[in-house]
Each structure stands twice: as structure tokens, then as C-alpha cells.
């Protein structure tokens, strides 16, 4: 049993916890199927305390998991057995916001939306907008290269992070990038983003801010078939438009959203498409005419254009609530995050339907149609014997389908715990071996979030509890 006294001495008593009941709050994250109790939880308030903690872990060969708000949907911030959790929520300061340079320097525990709120008075915002943005933290966003609904046009978190100061798993503190978007060295900042906590812990993150779009043109379109909705997306793309967002929901997810938030989507729709243009008013006045003429040709049976901001938010409310809403239809569910080439979306949905029928499990579909990122929601009831295993098998079929179609096992949630066994199906052995070598450069002792991303280690105890508590409370909704 490791002697934690020397770790305990780094913190005042109220910021070091061995209490099992207290730790229950940290034993899972957004992937509620897995639970693991850590040895201890520490609550640093300064970058120096984080550095000292990581160095202690390195010297004592104790694994650690850095954690923000624990909203990871892939089990990325699940604790490790015999390891500690470094809870970063108290490192929550926006250290600097420079509107002239359009950057913000933040600590990892800063909530995503807080950055945009701070930038708003200057007419700026922070673009990456995962649905959990009212509570997820920038540190977590960096670790998982979080996405959102606007990735096609604006990219992911990594495209908005231009500098990181971090403590690596070796204890070395490094500064990557700078306050300029330009660089003359390899992009170490870009590599750190999406490394899922396997390299170390970010201490300060330099974000780039964008001018807020002046105007939005948001359209909700109802279709009698998923195929029609998919074809509409292709038509918009082929016309040369670059919408800020394009989202599709199928009948089951519409039903769920309607029951949860009364979003008022067209009754009888087999699919709805949300298309959002954004930009200067002069450009939008021109593009909206083109969009309208395109959509007219795509066989919609209903169309609603948001007349103002309230209506725009109302259109989005249904989409943003979809995951949590499905959780009300079903005691348990798994959410997937695969990507397929956009032209194969229709085919993918047909195959998912076939998998669903064969398994006897219902699957609701919500997806970022603009970038081919699917979110099948596999519904099951864990009280039924073997239901979880059936759901996992179905999830595996979907992941394999994505790989076979030339896509990805994850568009934005990351590999984490959930999909680690599928990474070798996406990358060959030499490429996986290289990733191990690269990881070992940062973490030779394999103490930074071990057991994630790569297959191999024992999985923690499986149990299913449906919606994350914050979802049940309506504080967050999933992407």
C-alpha cells in the first residue's frame, strides 16, 4: 500500500481527500457505464501544486488522472485503480484577455462558456462549443480536442489553442507555442491537444478568439425520409455554401426531444435538418436566397426560418437536448461517435437500422451531417440479462462499419476507455507501436491516465446508470 503521507503534506487537509464517500463523486464521468474509485483526490489551486503533485506521482510511480468537470463521454477522466485524481476545477482563472490580439490565457479549470462570456464585451467569442459547454472545462477540451456543432467551418479545440504550458508526466514543465498563430517549430501544441491526458497536465492555455458572427440564418426543415435529409445536405455542399452548422435528427430522437423540451419540430417528420449560415449581413442576404432555392428542390414537407435570436435558440434547443431526452425514453443508453464519409451517411444509417433490428435494440440517430459525425444512441435496459453486452456488441458493429467505410471510430469524444479496443482496427501495428513510442517520450513510466486510448489493461467495474447526474438535473446536455 503506497504511503500517501508525502503527497498529503503538499496540500492543506480540505484539499486532500481519502474519504471514500466523497470520492464517489469522482468514480465515473460522462460514460456512466464504468466506475473506479481512486486512492485519493487532490484539489490544487495553483499551477505549482499541480507540478509538485505530478512530480510526486513520477517519483513514487503512482498513476494519476487529471479531471475537469468529468463530462467525458469516452471514460477519459475515469479514475485509475491505485491512482489519484487531480481535480483541476479550482484552477479556474482567466489570466489574461487581450482583445487587440484576440487571445485569452486561461487555467485548465476555466469553464468553456466562461471564455466566450468574458470575451463578449469586446465583440469576440471562443468558437468550440460542445453541448456541455456550460460546465466542461478548457483543460478537458484540450485533452479530448472537443468539437461541437460548428466543426466543419471552425474546426475543433486544437484549431483554437495556440499555446500551452504543461507539466509532463516526467515532471518537466514545458511551454509550447506562443501568442502568435504562426510558428517556426513543429506544432507541439497541436500534438498535445487530443492526447487524452496521456502526456501530462496543461497548466495554462492560450486560446484564440474570433469576432462574433454578426448574423445567423437558421433553418429547420422537415423531411419524410432520412435519405431526403441526407440528400439535402449534399445539395447544400455541392452548391458551394459553407454553413456554420448542419445537423440531422431521426424520428426517434425527434420524438424524445419533443417529449423532453417540446421543441415543436414538424410533426410526422422522419428526419429534421438544421442548417445555419452565419457571417456579415451582406453575405447572408445573398446566401440565404441561394439556400432557399436549394432547399426547395430537396422535397421538404415543412420549413421554418428563425425570425430572431429566440427562435434560433428554440430550433437548437431540440437538437441540444436530444441525448438527454433519449435518456428519458430508456433506462440506459450508449452514445457512439463514429465518422463516415458524408456521401456514405445514408448507407451507414441503413446499416445501423439493420443492426438495430437484428439486435432487438432501438437506436436513435443524431448527427453532424456537415462532417459525417454520427451519434447513434443505443437504448437498452440493463435490468434485462445480457442487455448491456448486446448494446456493446451493437456499438462494436457500428464502429467497425465506420472503419470499413474509411471513417473514424471517434469524431470528437476521443478514444478514452470506451473505444480503446478498436484503435488497433483503425491503425496498423506499426502505427500503434509508433504511438506507444511517442507516448513513452512524454510518459516513460506510464503513469499519466494509463489504461486509456490503447487496449490492454483491465477494465474497471462495469455498471450502468443511464444519464449523468448533471444531465438528469438539466445542467448539461450531450453533443
Amino acid at each position, binding site marked *: 500500500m503506497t504511503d500517501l503521507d508525502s503527497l498529503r503534506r503538499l496540500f492543506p487537509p480540505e484539499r486532500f481527500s481519502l474519504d471514500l464517500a466523497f470520492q464517489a463523486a469522482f468514480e465515473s464521468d460522462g460514460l456512466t457505464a464504468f466506475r473506479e474509485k481512486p486512492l485519493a483526490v487532490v484539489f490544487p489551486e495553483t499551477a505549482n501544486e499541480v507540478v509538485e503533485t505530478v512530480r510526486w506521482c513520477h517519483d513514487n510511480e503512482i498513476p494519476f488522472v487529471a479531471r475537469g468537470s468529468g463530462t467525458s463521454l469516452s471514460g477519459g477522466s475515469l479514475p485509475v485503480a491505485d491512482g489519484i485524481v487531480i481535480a483541476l476545477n479550482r484552477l479556474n482563472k482567466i489570466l489574461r484577455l487581450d482583445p487587440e*490580439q*484576440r487571445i485569452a490565457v486561461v487555467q485548465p479549470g476555466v469553464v468553456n462558456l466562461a471564455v466566450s462570456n468574458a470575451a463578449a464585451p469586446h*465583440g469576440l467569442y471562443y468558437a468550440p462549443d460542445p453541448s456541455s459547454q456550460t460546465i466542461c472545462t478548457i483543460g478537458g477540451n484540450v485533452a479530448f480536442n472537443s*468539437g461541437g456543432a460548428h*466543426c466543419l467551418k471552425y*474546426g*475543433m479545440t486544437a*484549431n483554437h489553442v495556440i499555446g500551452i504550458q504543461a507539466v509532463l508526466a*516526467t515532471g*518537466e514543465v*514545458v511551454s509550447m507555442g*506562443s501568442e*502568435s*498563430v*504562426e*510558428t*517556426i*517549430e*513543429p*506544432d*507541439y501544441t*497541436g*500534438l498535445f*491537444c*487530443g*492526447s487524452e491526458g496521456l502526456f501530462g497536465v496543461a497548466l495554462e492555455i492560450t486560446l484564440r478568439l474570433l*469576432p*462574433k458572427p454578426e448574423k445567423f440564418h437558421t433553418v429547420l426543415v422537415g423531411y419524410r425520409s432520412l435519405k431526403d435529409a441526407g440528400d439535402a445536405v449534399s445539395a447544400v*455542399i*455541392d452548391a*458551394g455554401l*459553407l454553413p456554420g452548422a448542419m445537423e440531422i435528427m431521426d424520428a426517434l430522437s425527434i420524438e424524445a426531444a419533443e417529449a423532453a423540451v417540446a421543441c415543436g419540430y414538424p410533426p410526422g417528420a422522419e428526419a429534421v435538418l438544421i442548417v445555419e449560415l452565419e*457571417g*456579415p449581413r*451582406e*453575405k447572408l442576404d*445573398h446566401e440565404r436566397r441561394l439556400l432557399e432555392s436549394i432547399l426547395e428542390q430537396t422535397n421538404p414537407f415543412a420549413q421554418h426560418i428563425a425570425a430572431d435570436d429566440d427562435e434560433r435558440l428554440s430550433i437548437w434547443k431540440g437538437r441540444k437536448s436530444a441525448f438527454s431526452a433519449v435518456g428519458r425514453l430508456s433506462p440506459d443508453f450508449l452514445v457512439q461517435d463514429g*465518422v*463516415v464519409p*458524408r456521401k456514405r451517411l445514408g448507407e451507414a444509417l441503413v446499416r445501423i437500422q439493420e443492426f438495430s433490428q437484428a439486435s432487438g435494440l432501438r437506436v436513435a440517430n443524431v448527427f*453532424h451531417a456537415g*462532417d*459525417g*459525425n454520427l451519434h447513434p444512441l443505443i437504448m437498452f435496459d440493463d435490468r434485462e440479462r445480457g442487455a448491456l453486452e448486446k448494446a456493446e456488441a451493437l456499438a462494436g458493429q457500428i464502429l467497425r462499419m465506420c472503419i470499413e467505410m474509411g*471513417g*473514424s*471510430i*471517434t*469524431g470528437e469524444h476521443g*478514444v478514452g476507455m470506451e*473505444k480503446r479496443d478498436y484503435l488497433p482496427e*483503425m491503425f*496498423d501495428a*506499426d*502505427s500503434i507501436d*509508433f504511438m506507444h*513510442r*511517442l507516448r513513452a*517520450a512524454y510518459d516513460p513510466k506510464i503513469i499519466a491516465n494509463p489504461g486509456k*486510448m490503447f487496449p490492454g489493461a483491465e477494465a474497471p467495474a462495469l455498471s450502468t446508470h443511464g444519464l449523468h447526474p448533471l444531465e438528469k438535473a438539466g445542467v448539461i446536455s450531450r453533443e
Partner: protein
Amino acid sequence: MDDLKDIVRGKYRIVPVGNQSKPPLSRSFAQTHRLVSLRELSGVIEYEPSEFTITVWAGTPVREIISILKDQNQYLPFDPMLANSSTIGGTVASGLSGPGRFRYGGIRDFILGCQFLDGQGTVINSGGRVVKNAAGFDVPKLLVSSLGRLAVMTQMTFKVFPCPGPWLTLAARCENHEEALQRVSVAACSRWELDAIDYQASSRTLLLRLAGDPEVTGAIAKDVEKVMRCEFQHWSDEQSIRHWQSVNDLNWESELVGDEIVRWKSPTTPKCFLNWANWADTLEGVSVYGSGALTTTWGIAKSSLIDRVPDILAKTNNGLLLNGPYDGHEGYLSPLVTSNIQKDIKRAFDPEGQLVLCQH
């Protein structure tokens, strides 16, 4: 590819090059390494306009890629520099994004996947071929600006966008550099979605590039003039294309041409750019040009003045040499200090040092 693998595994240390349009990046190693050109690894592997992705061999000329995309009304939003003389591999390896990066981003924001040979000649695949992918480490980003010193890139996949439309270039004289900085800031924070925000220091000329339907850009241009409260020249198409081509060729200063001219790139903040600009004002034979709202400083100078560069480096950032008879410190204006992790990463790619070693 098999030949290339054999060469990487062979007894000589190597430096991969494309067209060698940026000699300072490889010349330092000519005595100790074999320069291996990837020009023959050329061509489009997969292009799906509706997917917004293109996969190409590293030795493909950039102008060929631009032409193929243009036929489908698409383009590379990172606006690759030296497009007429470079391969795409060389562009990624030297990290040369141009003025158009202001609108949507640089190479790092559009590279989706990369296949490369590690130092042992093993083929490694990283990233993917779809526009959204969070699986595995984002090694494609790391390889941007890696100068061929970590790996030998063989294939890369990019996200592409629809062409934004014809250019409208607005040019305005500024009283001084400080006024230019202030105007750049207003433009960069504006609602206008500008395509490029550049500044030619020697002539004190602010350049705002709009791209889109002429009705749209014309209307926005009116608002630009109103908000900025200054008169802009609307350049003709010919003048506009000539200027942006000259920037792309790093030839904006017609008096500074020839083999004895040194060219470089430096990452800057606007305040850093101001230091470069003020320094250039004190010397005859130096010109600096700011792109991307002054986040990139391009410099050209007579090679006889290169010993004056260290004076200014204390107040700016390091730079990457791109052309001319001066090699600097293995292609950098001042020596790089390499951290432990950078050395360890290098070893992960190239355990036996077949590529350029970290020297410091």
C-alpha cells in the same frame, strides 16, 4: 516507396527535400547528409469534392493541387506560399501559410492525415482521411514546420473549402506603423469576415482583401471605409492579382531582388511586428511585410545586412530562413534551444538518427 524506404534505412543520413525552393533549410547538411528529393512521389491519390478532402503524394507540386481544386471551385484555405515553386510536402514541412490564412486558418487547421516513414523506414499512418477525427495522436499537426527533421512525409490529406469568390483588395496609406497597428486591430475584430489583412511596412500600406460575390464585397467595402474612416483605393483585378502573387513569391519589394537577397519568416504579435518594422526603417536594403493581421512577418534583406539581424532578434522572435545565401543556424536566424521532451520526441521518430539530429 520501396526505394525510399531503402534509402531511409541505408547507411547515409538523409534530409528529405521537395523542389529545394527553400535552400537554407537543407543546405547546412549537404556535407553530412544525403539530400533525397521526393519530387517523384507525386500525384493525387484521392479527391472527393463533396467530402471536402484531398489526399496527395508529398512531392506533388502545389500549383498542380491548386489547379485541380479550382476546377471543382475549391481551394486550399491556408494559402500556401511559394506556390509556383514548391511541393506540398515542402510547404507543410516549412509551415508556409500565406495571407489567406487569416480567414479560416493555417496549414495546421487543414491537415487531416499524414503518412510518413520514421527514421527506420517504417511506414506510419497518422490522422485520417475524413474532416473530423479524434482517434490517436494528432501527429499530422506536429509535422507542420518540422523541416523534414522528424520524419519523411510521403502522403498527406487536407480539408479543402469552396472557393470564397473573386478578390476585392482595398489599400490605404497609414501615417505611421502605429496607426497601421490600430487599423489592423479594428479590421481583425470586425464583422466583415475579411480574407486577408496585410501591411507593407516600407510603403505604410494597409491591405484588406475581401473575397466573395462582388455585390457582397462591394457592400462590405463601403462599410469598411465608413468604420475605418479612411479612404481606400479599390485595386483593379490585375493590380490585386499582381500584388498577392508578389507576396506569395516573397517578392513584394521590386528593388530587392536577385541571388544576394535573404528571405525569412518570423512568427509575431502586432507589437513584435512593430519592432521589426521600426528596425527595417533604420536600414537601407531591408523590407518587412506583415500577414495575418501581423501574426506573420516576412522579411527580405540584402545579405550584406544579415549581421544586423541579431540586433533586432532580442526584441522579436526567431525566424526561419527561406531563401538566399545565408544558412543561419541550420535554417534559423538564431539557434534553437531544444528541450528534453523535444529530444525524446525526436528519438521516438528516429531512434538511430538517420534524419537531422537535434544539435542543442
